[in-house]
């Protein structure tokens, strides 16, 4: 969807993917994606604020967890866990649609664009990502996409619409987890 450097911490944007509007957030260097439509009344979640999770078991005693931000819908303030899309007050009944947003090496993005990203099987994906280098030693990929200008030296934000991937390999440390 674009260069990782274009979405600074605290910023958010909505991107159109396959006809769907997806809200993408950079919260302190972590990237989150949600279908840009609140499951309650369809508000643009992209306009919501991130607020630390606050819990309590006794009046006056608070746990204020800045490490676990919740997205508050701009219309009614319902809070959502962006990693799962679950609403905070009604985990069973109200759920947003989360998307994985990852930072990927330009070479990999270029390869996926060339092949058509939806075509990769898990095995092909593992093979492709295994070649994408280790932290601090990015290897320029051999392919250049013709239809989309992808600069292989940059990191790109990728919204993943596919089924869950195989567990990441331990040597792929340059990829940031989403939660």
């Amino acid at each position, binding site marked *: 969807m674009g260069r990782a450097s274009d979405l600074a911490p605290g910023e958010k944007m909505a991107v159109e993917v396959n006809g769907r509007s997806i809200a993408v957030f950079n919260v302190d260097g972590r990237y989150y994606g949600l279908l840009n439509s609140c499951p309650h009344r369809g508000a643009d979640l992209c306009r919501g604020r991130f607020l630390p999770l606050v819990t*309590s078991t*006794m009046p*006056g005693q608070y746990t204020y967890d800045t490490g676990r931000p919740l997205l508050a819908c701009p219309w009614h303030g319902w*809070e959502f866990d962006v990693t799962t899309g679950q609403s905070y007050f009604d985990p069973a009944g109200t759920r947003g649609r989360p998307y994985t947003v990852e930072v990927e090496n330009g070479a990999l993005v270029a390869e996926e664009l060339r092949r058509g990203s939806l075509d990769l099987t898990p095995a092909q994906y593992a093979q492709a990502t295994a070649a994408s280098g280790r932290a601090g030693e990015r290897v320029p990929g051999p392919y250049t996409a013709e239809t989309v200008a992808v600069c292989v030296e940059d990191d790109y934000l990728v919204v993943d619409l596919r089924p869950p991937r195989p567990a990441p390999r331990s040597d792929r440390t340059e990829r940031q987890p989403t939660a």
Partner: protein
Amino acid sequence: MTTTTAAPAWTGPVIDVDVHANVPSAEALFPYLARQWVDWCTERNWKAPQGPTVHYPPNSPRACRPEWRPADGRVPSSDVDLLRAHVLDPWGVDHAIVNCYYGVDSIRQPDWHNAMASAVNDWLVEHWLEKDSRLRASLVLPARDPESMVKEIRRVGSHPGFVQVLLPVRTDALWGRRMFFPVFAAMAEHDLVAGLHYGGTNDGVPSTTGYPSYFIEEYAAEWQAFGSQITSMVAEGLFQAVPDLRVAVLEGGFLWLPAWGWRMNKDWKGLRREVPWLDEPPFDVVRRHFRFSTAPTEAGPASTLERSLGWLRTEEALMFATDYPHAHDDDLTRLLAAMPETMRAKTMSENARHWYRLPRRG
């Protein structure tokens, strides 16, 4: 409902959770007061706290059912024999909870205020609880001062006849405020129900927005005060602080509750960060911690009563009350007819038996 027989609508066990004892005169309390406070009353020719005469103008049609008004001029419901003849015997009640709203909280002198509350409680024990084993009673508390309230609970709260604390619904401060937490903790410790009852200090404005001009406004709109108190108790985390607390809403009505619950649940979803201890929908907290007396019943048209009772979404919410000697003209037959069969027995006795831990009578 008549004076001599129970309503044909119900022939099973009956527990009446709201019957009133009226202190007939200040002199009736003198045996329970230190000389200093007797003199305090007589030096001033003080006759009674002012609150109740405002809440219940003595000759108002609401204050006493005509057939319950003693012909000899005595104060209605000022003697256990009147209660026996009018309610306990004809209704065949298992138990009745005596509530004495004397209006102690309209006395400001703090020490006299405390002494009067204790005197009313001692009078209740001798003239009511010890006169009829069917009776239980609510403690009267000096409601202006949390510390004094706790002291009075500790003084008499263990008496087996006291099952509840009478909390006037109109107060200087909302009951959910943290300064009252120790009072509610003391109630739970003594296994006493918090009985939120019509009435209270007449210092404050009875509505939420200024003084009304007529009694009908004050009386019919009192549910606003009940709504404010319930909102306060739920939102401020009273039930997280005192998880065993049981509350009875007495003479407050109950069909305003679904609208209150829907609104509270709706706003809680978006505002819960303010009150993070409130970790479930407010209406659920009320269903678990509150019961409501059936008098007065704001029943509405017969054609909609069954539906509106269903909005409570629980069969445990209601407890039958005559509110003797007050006159509400409630139609018990119609209320019971609108309930599922299983809810009738619960409403007439079982919910109260459970809430007040009352024994089953042989």
